Each structure stands twice: as C-alpha cells, then as structure tokens.
C-alpha cells in the first residue's frame, strides 16, 4: 500500500525516502535556525529588559525564560520521539526511526538544561540546589529514560534492530511517563504549582508570559533545526553505500 502511495508520486509522502528528504531537510534547516535565533533574541530581550521584576522572587525568577521552555520541550520531545519511533515500527519507514534517533540527544539536552537551570533557580529561591520534589525527580527520571534509549541504540550494531528495539522502549516509556509522574507526585511535592494552565488565567504578568512563550517557540524551532541537521548526518552515515550519496560526494 505504501509503495502505491510512493508510486503515485507528487504527494509529500515521497519525502519519506531518505534520498529525497536529505536535500529537503538541507533547505529547511536555515529557515528554522533563523526563526530560532530571532525568537530567542526577542524572548531574551522581553525577559531581561521588558518583563518586570517579580515581587517575591526578585531578579532570579528570570531564569524561567530558559527553564520553563526547556522543561516543556524535554517532555514534548519525548512524545515526538516516541511518535516517530512508533511510526517507524508500524510502517517500517526508515526515515521515521532515524528521526526518533535524531531527536533523542536534543531531548536529553533540554532535560539537562531544565534540571540545571532549575538548580540555579532553586538556590536563591528555596535555599538549596536540589530537593527531592516530585517535578525535579520525575524530570531526572525523564533524563534517565532518554539516556536509556540512547544507550540501547548505541549498544546495537544493526541499525534496523536498534531502531525497532528503541521504538519498543520509547513506547513502553511513554506509557510509563504519566504513571511515574503521578507516583512521584504522591510521593513528595514542594515545587510551585504550574503557573500556566489552559483552564484558568495564568498567575503571572502578561509580559512574563509573552517572553516565556516566545522563548518556548524559539526552543521549539531550535529543536527542529538541530534534529534535522542530526537526521541528515544519520542519513549520510547509514546510506553511505548508496549511489545517490556517491553522486553527492562526487559533485561536492
């Protein structure tokens, strides 16, 4: 069925073929990178020069312009990664699995940034770098899940087996993440409640929220750009014996 779709041509499905996606990704990367740079510059400007000083936390609250977007992205990217891994497993599309592999390091970095910036914020606010609070702990466990996914794929030499094994692990992880989150939440909670919620008015100044959302968009664009760059490298590595890469190398 899939070959029929591909044979029909013209549709965007054809970009599931690595040799067609490679140049497309190359064209997309500068746009996403430019958007990421512009949005982050704007977000940081709002965050540091426009947003008012917080009444209780002083200037140190400004770390949320890094902290919250990276925490959002860390969770979002895990779902995206599991999604592409599952698509790769279900439809046997190589590119989807490569995309999952490409997203994992960015997700891990985002998780790490969220933990690190949270520690730096916690010191002046809570008086300690680390507490065994529910959100911190589940974020740390999320980091372990990312690292486990990467370690499993690194341990398997056959790329197709690595893709599929990683997919099963990512799916099991995605089912587990809510359970882990709630169990850790029952275990201990000190973190301030979520300041942004879809169902009630946010408890922060509008400029703060704008800065944070702009930064989140910037981080999102960055994640797309860097994942595309990484997937291009993975395509080159895996397809190095194919003709189109030889042609590409010959032209360059």
């Amino acid at each position, binding site marked *: 069925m899939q070959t029929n779709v591909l044979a029909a041509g013209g549709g965007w499905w054809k970009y599931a073929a690595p040799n067609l996606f490679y140049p497309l990704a190359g064209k997309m990367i500068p746009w996403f990178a430019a958007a990421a740079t512009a949005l982050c510059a704007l977000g940081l400007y709002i965050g540091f020069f426009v947003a008012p000083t917080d009444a209780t936390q002083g200037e140190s609250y400004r770390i949320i312009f890094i902290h919250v977007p990276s925490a959002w992205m860390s969770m979002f990217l895990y779902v995206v990664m599991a999604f592409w891994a599952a698509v790769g497993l279900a439809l046997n599309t190589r590119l989807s699995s490569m995309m999952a592999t490409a997203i994992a390091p960015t997700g891990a970095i985002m998780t790490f940034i969220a933990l690190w910036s949270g520690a730096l914020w916690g010191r002046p606010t809570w008086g300690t770098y680390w507490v065994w609070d529910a959100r911190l702990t589940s974020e740390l466990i999320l980091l372990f899940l990312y690292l486990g996914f990467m370690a499993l794929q690194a341990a398997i030499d056959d790329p197709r087996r690595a893709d599929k*094994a990683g997919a*099963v*692990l990512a799916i099991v992880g995605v089912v*587990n993440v809510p*359970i*882990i989150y709630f169990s*850790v939440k029952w*275990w201990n909670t000190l973190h301030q409640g979520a300041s942004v919620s879809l169902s009630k008015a946010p408890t922060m100044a509008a400029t703060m929220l704008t800065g944070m959302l702009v930064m989140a968009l910037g981080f999102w664009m960055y994640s797309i750009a860097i994942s595309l760059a990484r997937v291009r490298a993975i395509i080159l590595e895996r397809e190095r014996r194919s003709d189109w890469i030889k042609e590409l190398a010959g032209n360059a």
Partner: protein
Amino acid sequence: MLRTLAAVVRRDLLLAFRQRADVANTLLFFVVVVTMVPLGVGAEPNLLRSIAPGVVWVAALLAAILSLNRLFAADFADGTLEQMLISAEPLPLIVLGKTAAHWLVTGVPVTAIAVVLGIMFDLGVGETATLMASLALGTPVLSLIGAVGAALTLGLRGGGVLVSLLVLPLYVPVLILGAGSVEAVAAGLGGGPYLLLLGALALFAIVLTPWAVSAALRISVE
C-alpha cells in the same frame, strides 16, 4: 490456552529446580544487600525502622534486575526461543508463562524472606505484613517490566548493565508505592490505597507487557 500456559510455567520451574544454585543466589544476594545497610548507616533502631521499607524494596529491585538474564538468555542460546517464536501458540501467552515462572522463583522467595528482614529491622507486625503484601503485589510487576528490558537486550554486549539502565527508571512507581505502603502503616495511615494501586499496576502490567515483550523478542531474534 491454559494448558500452554501451564506447560510453559512447569517447564521453566523444572529448569529452575535443576539449577537450584542460581535461584538461591538471587535470594542470597537480596539478603546480603539488605544486611549491608545497617553496617553502613549504623545500628540505631529508630533509623533502621524508618529506612527498612525503602532498603528492602531497593534490594528487591536489584535482585529482580540481576535475575532477569535467566528469563530468556538460556533459551536464546540453545535455540528454544526461536522454536517458541515460530510455534503456533500465541507468543504473549508463552511470555506470560515464562514471567510467571520467573516470579515464582524470584518474587515469591523474596516476599517470604521479607518476614525475617522485618524482624531484623525491628518492624511491627502490621508493617511486616504490609511489606510482604506490597512485595507480593509488586514483584510480579518487576518480573513483567524487567522482561521487556531482558528481551530488548538479548544477546547484546554489556547486556547486564544496560538492562538495569533501561529498567530501573521504569520501576520507580513500584518502588514508591511499595515502600510508601509500609511507611503509611508506620505513620498510622493504613497502607490500603498503596496496595490497591500496586494491584492495579500489576493487572495493567499483566495485560500489556506480554505484548511488548513479544515484539521485543521478535526484534531481537530475527
């Protein structure tokens, strides 16, 4: 269906019985790890009483992880696993049977020996009973989730360390609920809700993990 399940359980139990030392080693490891803790933190009874649930549960997690390679490795090495994969019987059922046998030779002894550990850590009767109940409900989940990790890392170099890296984060809810139930009883709150949640987790794992394990086995063996 039930006959297949019973046959698989019986076969794995028989194999485990023929290699009694392996089974005993897991249990011994569990007891030795728990024994090390008072030597490390001191013998103050109040302190030991408060950390006992966590210590016993962490040791149970480690014992489960260490015993995981027994699940599929031997069958993989002698080709039995391939026969299971191509057999007409549903693979998730075979997997369920194998994990049930694994639980019977690791989870059940660990649960039983916990009564001795409860005495050693000066736990009350209620706490010890809750500890055993939580282990009885939680160790099947350890075997089931562990089976996913064991199937994924089948035949890989450094499989033992890798499997703990994959599986331990997924064990977090069991650890929290298991140790939490005993702490709740010690605090006079009653461990009922924790045990109910552990039971829910066990049912959830029984329904879903055999499919994940089957998928992982097919990936690893193909």
